């Protein structure tokens, strides 16, 4: 809402010298978001006067037509002689009144005017266009004034060229501030000054003979005022002051009648509609549209109506979308302007007008405006709630202006339809605002503040507050408390700290996630959270089978991109895209991780219920709400490529590979106290020979699969455009957390007896997993085994085709004695025997 300070002063007698910034500061403090204060005509300096064109000489021989004019500027130039001015515009004629800036004047933008030679003549000043005067951007032509203004008159004052305009972002609860009336009320309160309310005017009561109106939908329209003005001079134009005010609030002047309805809307906040009475066909009605009914609106678009749309009708059918936009057929017309529908009356010009001022149901208007994507200045106000008591006054203002400016005659008949309604009251304890704010205002302040916003207050400790008709947002004690607190100043609230009961700190799960983040970052991974949007293409690139569960996705109804309409089922799509982006930007050694949710539709889940909100939902309703949601487990994943360890002066580097990815899974699991069990697997998107499935044993002894890792399939790296041999892993953190639940390491007994070490090299078939050999060795070695480490894997002709040698270092120690060589050898032999039994291992000779 744009508010010219000059207009505002009409209702609030602000002290002289009060600047727009002062008003801005006060209104911000009172809760109006005044975003800017525009300085209209900043830097403008006279002499700028009304002139009359005496002669025009067309200059020939230039690229564009140029006029050499003499202009009567009265005594403004000191001599009274005609002023000689060169001008490039052509939209004026001899005898026209124009705006002339004389040498010494300055136009906005520091454009200094002096006598200067141009096009072979000396120009002593300039004839001004609207744009040059800062009156608006939509006119390049010269301003031609109505003839009644005298030459030599100061045009800065005449055209109100210097002003300040506040721009206010009005929140949805403060519809009344979409008017000068509302902003003036706030300004008056903020400055402690009286308000002269533009809606507080004498209005006639209902009187027979008004235009007939029948409201059949009283829920949609509880108030309808209709007034008729006849004998309108359709050639009358809006006076300068009216045009200027509309320009300053951001409306383009159109025609006198339209300008007046707009003016009144900005003045009192009541949108009006003006009908050409000669085009109305019988009684005006207000009803819901019949589904499929059609209406061509003012913008020339034919709209198919919905059964919920509220329409204004006459006997021919709908003539307007109530509160949103009028119809083309009954539009008022300027002289010489053809009707929008090309009707036979085209060009006749409207001389009889029916003014509609109504109050519509905000929700209905909002839905219609949204349904037809047809927001208007009117609908903006109706959907926030207008003042139902203001319709008569607004209609009267329009009638007065039509009489005054268009020479019309008000018909005596007044149509007033009003659904009877009690004033709305709110009961509130007088100290409620104190208790909400946490400070003490006292009853007197509370009552005074409520009265300032227009409330009528009775009662002592328990107040009965009758709220003003223009404040539909005030329904509950907290609404009133907010009014008191904001007028007393949010900035004056004290600052205190509540005392919560002792908290339990982060949960195990939250701590685990932080540990995992730090552990992975500590291992060289960079956290890279990606958007969770995916498309089929990305899932195809991963090489997922048609029946892979990761293809069952949750889809968005309105995705940002049609290529990515679904929510991720794996973190790898996002991580690999991030890896590719980094690689493309020249970072080739990459290790990335993400922890986040993935989404799986829940089989057979219905739609969540919509319990009412005037009570707590039942436990069944809560359960149903949760059960309808997709499964949203938290995953952790890494991807890596390039060098895991760079080459340098110390020697060779080490490429990142499948083993790093699998180790990252172990790192994650270890933080949860889970020892991963690894099995060779074949699983997209991994290389079939280089993929591990990860398992964990839960507290109840069951084995659960937690994820996969390894090297990506070459088809996948190719399809995704990521480097070959890129490795990855992904685990389900919820499952890992479940498996590690209750994990609490117990302190080992540290033996101080000497260690006995034994190395063994075992030869097994190449496809025997090292994990199995190790498990057998551990089992066979028994309790004396302190640790076991695989220190070499060897293949070659000495070992034999299809076989490999695994070399282990075994460390034995007893808690209570020094082991003898025999003890250690016996344990070692038992370990080898078990490995031989389980894996056909033979001792390498």
């Amino acid at each position, binding site marked *: 809402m744009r508010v010219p300070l000059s207009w505002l002063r009409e209702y609030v007698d602000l002290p002289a010298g009060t600047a727009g910034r002062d008003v801005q500061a006060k209104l911000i403090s009172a*809760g109006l978001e005044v975003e800017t204060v525009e300085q209209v005509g900043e830097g403008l300096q006279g002499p700028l006067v009304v002139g009359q064109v005496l002669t025009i000489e067309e200059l020939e021989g230039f690229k564009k037509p140029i006029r050499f004019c003499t202009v009567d500027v009265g005594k403004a130039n000191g001599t009274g002689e005609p002023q000689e001015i060169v001008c490039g515009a052509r939209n004026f004629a001899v005898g026209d009144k124009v705006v002339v800036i004389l040498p010494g004047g300055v136009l906005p933008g520091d454009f200094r005017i002096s006598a200067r030679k141009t096009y072979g003549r000396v120009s002593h000043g300039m004839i001004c266009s609207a744009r040059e005067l800062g009156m608006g951007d939509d006119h390049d032509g010269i301003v031609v004034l109505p003839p009644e203004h005298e030459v030599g008159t100061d045009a800065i004052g005449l055209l109100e060229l210097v002003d300040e305009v506040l721009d206010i972002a009005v929140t949805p609860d403060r519809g009344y501030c979409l008017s000068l009336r509302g902003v003036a009320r706030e300004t008056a309160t903020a400055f402690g000054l009286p308000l002269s309310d533009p809606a507080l005017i004498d209005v006639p009561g209902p009187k027979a003979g008004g235009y007939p109106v029948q409201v059949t939908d009283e829920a949609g329209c509880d108030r309808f005022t209709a007034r008729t003005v006849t004998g309108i001079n359709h050639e009358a134009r809006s006076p300068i002051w009216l045009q200027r005010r509309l320009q300053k609030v951001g409306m383009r002047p159109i025609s006198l009648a339209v300008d007046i309805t707009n003016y009144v809307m900005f003045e009192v906040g009541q949108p009006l509609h003006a009908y050409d009475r000669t085009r109305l066909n019988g009684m005006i009605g207000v009803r819901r549209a019949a589904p499929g009914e059609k209406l061509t609106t003012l913008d020339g678009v034919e709209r198919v109506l919905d059964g919920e749309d509220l329409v204004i009708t006459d006997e021919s059918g709908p003539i307007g979308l109530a509160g949103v936009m009028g119809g083309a057929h009954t539009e008022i017309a300027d002289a010489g302007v053809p009707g929008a529908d090309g009707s036979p009356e085209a060009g006749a010009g409207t001389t009889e007008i029916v003014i509609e001022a109504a109050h519509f149901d905000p929700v209905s208007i909002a839905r219609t405006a949204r349904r037809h994507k047809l927001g208007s200045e009117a609908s903006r106000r109706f959907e926030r709630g207008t003042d139902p008591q203001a319709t008569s006054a607004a209609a009267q203002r329009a009638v007065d202006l039509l009489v005054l400016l268009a020479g019309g005659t008000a018909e005596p008949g007044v149509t007033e339809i009003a659904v009877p309604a009690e004033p709305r009251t709110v009961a509130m304890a007088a100290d409620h605002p104190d208790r909400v704010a946490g400070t003490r205002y006292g009853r007197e302040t509370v009552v005074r503040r409520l009265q300032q916003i227009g409330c009528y207050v009775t009662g002592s400790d328990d107040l009965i507050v009758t709220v003003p008709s223009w404040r539909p947002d005030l329904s509950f004690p*907290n609404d009133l408390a907010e009014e008191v607190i904001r007028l007393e100043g949010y900035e004056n*609230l*004290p600052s*205190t700290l509540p005392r*919560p009961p002792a908290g339990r*700190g982060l949960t195990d799960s939250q701590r685990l996630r932080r540990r995992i983040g730090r552990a992975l970052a500590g291992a060289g991974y960079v956290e890279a959270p990606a958007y969770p949007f995916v498309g089929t293409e990305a899932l195809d690139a991963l090489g997922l089978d048609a029946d892979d569960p990761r293809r069952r996705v949750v889809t968005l109804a309105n995705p940002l991109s049609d290529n990515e309409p679904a929510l991720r089922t794996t973190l790898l799509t996002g991580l690999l895209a991030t890896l590719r982006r980094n690689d493309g930007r020249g970072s080739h050694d990459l290790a990335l991780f993400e922890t986040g949710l993935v989404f799986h539709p829940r089989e057979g889940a219905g739609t969540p219920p919509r*319990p009412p909100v005037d009570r*707590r939902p039942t436990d069944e309703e809560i359960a149903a709400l949760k059960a*309808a949601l997709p499964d949203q487990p938290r995953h952790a994943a890494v991807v890596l490529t390039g060098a895991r360890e760079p080459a340098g002066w110390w020697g060779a580097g080490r490429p990142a590979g499948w083993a790093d990815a699998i180790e990252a899974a172990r790192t994650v699991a270890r933080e949860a106290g889970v020892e991963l069990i690894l099995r060779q697997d074949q699983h997209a998107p991994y290389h079939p020979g280089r993929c591990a499935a990860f398992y964990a044993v839960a507290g109840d002894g069951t084995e659960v699969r937690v994820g996969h890792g390894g090297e990506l399939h070459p088809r996948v790296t190719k399809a995704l455009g990521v480097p070959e041999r890129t490795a990855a892993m992904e685990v389900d953190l919820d499952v890992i957390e479940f498996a590690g639940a209750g994990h609490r390491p117990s302190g080992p007994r540290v033996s101080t007896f000497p260690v006995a070490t034994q190395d063994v090299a075992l030869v097994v078939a190449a496809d025997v997993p090292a994990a199995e050999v190790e498990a057998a060795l551990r089992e066979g070695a028994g309790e004396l085994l302190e640790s076991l480490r695989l220190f070499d894997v060897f293949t070659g002709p000495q070992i034999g085709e299809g076989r490999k040698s695994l070399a282990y270092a075994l460390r034995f120690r007893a808690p209570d004695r020094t082991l003898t060589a025999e003890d250690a050898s016996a344990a070692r032999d038992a370990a080898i025997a078990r490995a031989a039994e389980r894996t056909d291992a033979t001792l390498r000779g």
Partner: protein
Amino acid sequence: MSAPNKSYDPVEVEALQPQQIEQMRDEALAAIAAATDLDALAHVKTAHAGGGSPLALANREIGALPPQAKAEAGKRVGQARGAVNKALAARQGELEAERDARVLVEEAVDVTLPYGRATAGARHPLATLSDRIEDIFVAMGYEVAEGPEVEAEWFNFDALNISVDNPVRSEQDTFFVAAADGSEDSGMVLRTHTSGVQIRSLLERELPVYVIAPGRVYRSDELDATHTPVFRQVELLAVDEGLTMADLKGTLDHMVVSLFGEGMTTRLRPNHFPFTEPSAEMDMLCYVCRGESVGNPDRPCRTCSSEGWIELGGCGIVNPKVLIACGVDPQKYSGFAFGFGIERMLMFRHNVEDMRDIVEGDVRFTLPFGMEI
């Protein structure tokens, strides 16, 4: 150690002539003097002062001497060994000094060589900033509450007094989940704030409730320098007996002091949200200029555009309608809540100019933030 010898051996006795002992000593001293480095000296020490050295053997023989010769021989051998040990120690000192002066210098390396062998990783600054904010409130007794990102509309809107007609429930603002059966309305959205977690907390927890709800949220904006459709929020909810706007203000003040240092403060401006009443917009004092740039064109501030304040987010007293929807008696309990986006805070706290840098996952952006911020 050898046992005392009762039978005297004339040959051995012969061996303890004074000249012989002097000779052993002189040979030892000569060898010590001739040792040129610490390794050589160690060999000399073994040969001339070790357990098998001539002097050690001679010393062992003293026990076999007749008592009248013992004292004399003992004294001679002792003096000789003393001289050798002294010379050894002296030479040891000389050679160590020489090594320190020469050899260690020769072993010098260029310690300024780079060693990026184990490359660093980092957590994302949004995660660590969120952690940091959580920690501030956990220290006050709040608990961290979480919830799903695909949320029922009832939790995300209805229970928060956001009516079906509120424009935020349009496709311009909210991502809607498509219904599995193709029907129009799934009743589910990508949560537009973590307020659904507040509702869940009120339904699930015992009163009083003091929770902080961080997490990812979604709004259907295109990614540009200042917007992202996927962002992180921190919301706070406190519901207890007698909570006030002053408590809200104090809590916000405490947060900005914890995050930005002493002297920081917040400012509330009236605003409107369906889920709070009264509602406010919260600003924090510009931590760079502390408001000094306002009306001071000589000292403009880029962080706050010389406004003196930085907009943080929305807050207010929990609308009693929200309490009612969660079965909390608004006559007895009141609450306050606030929420803000962490991206914006990261941007002004760490001079990030472009939102895209935060969301694109470029390692060059993330690495400098390390493990904590």
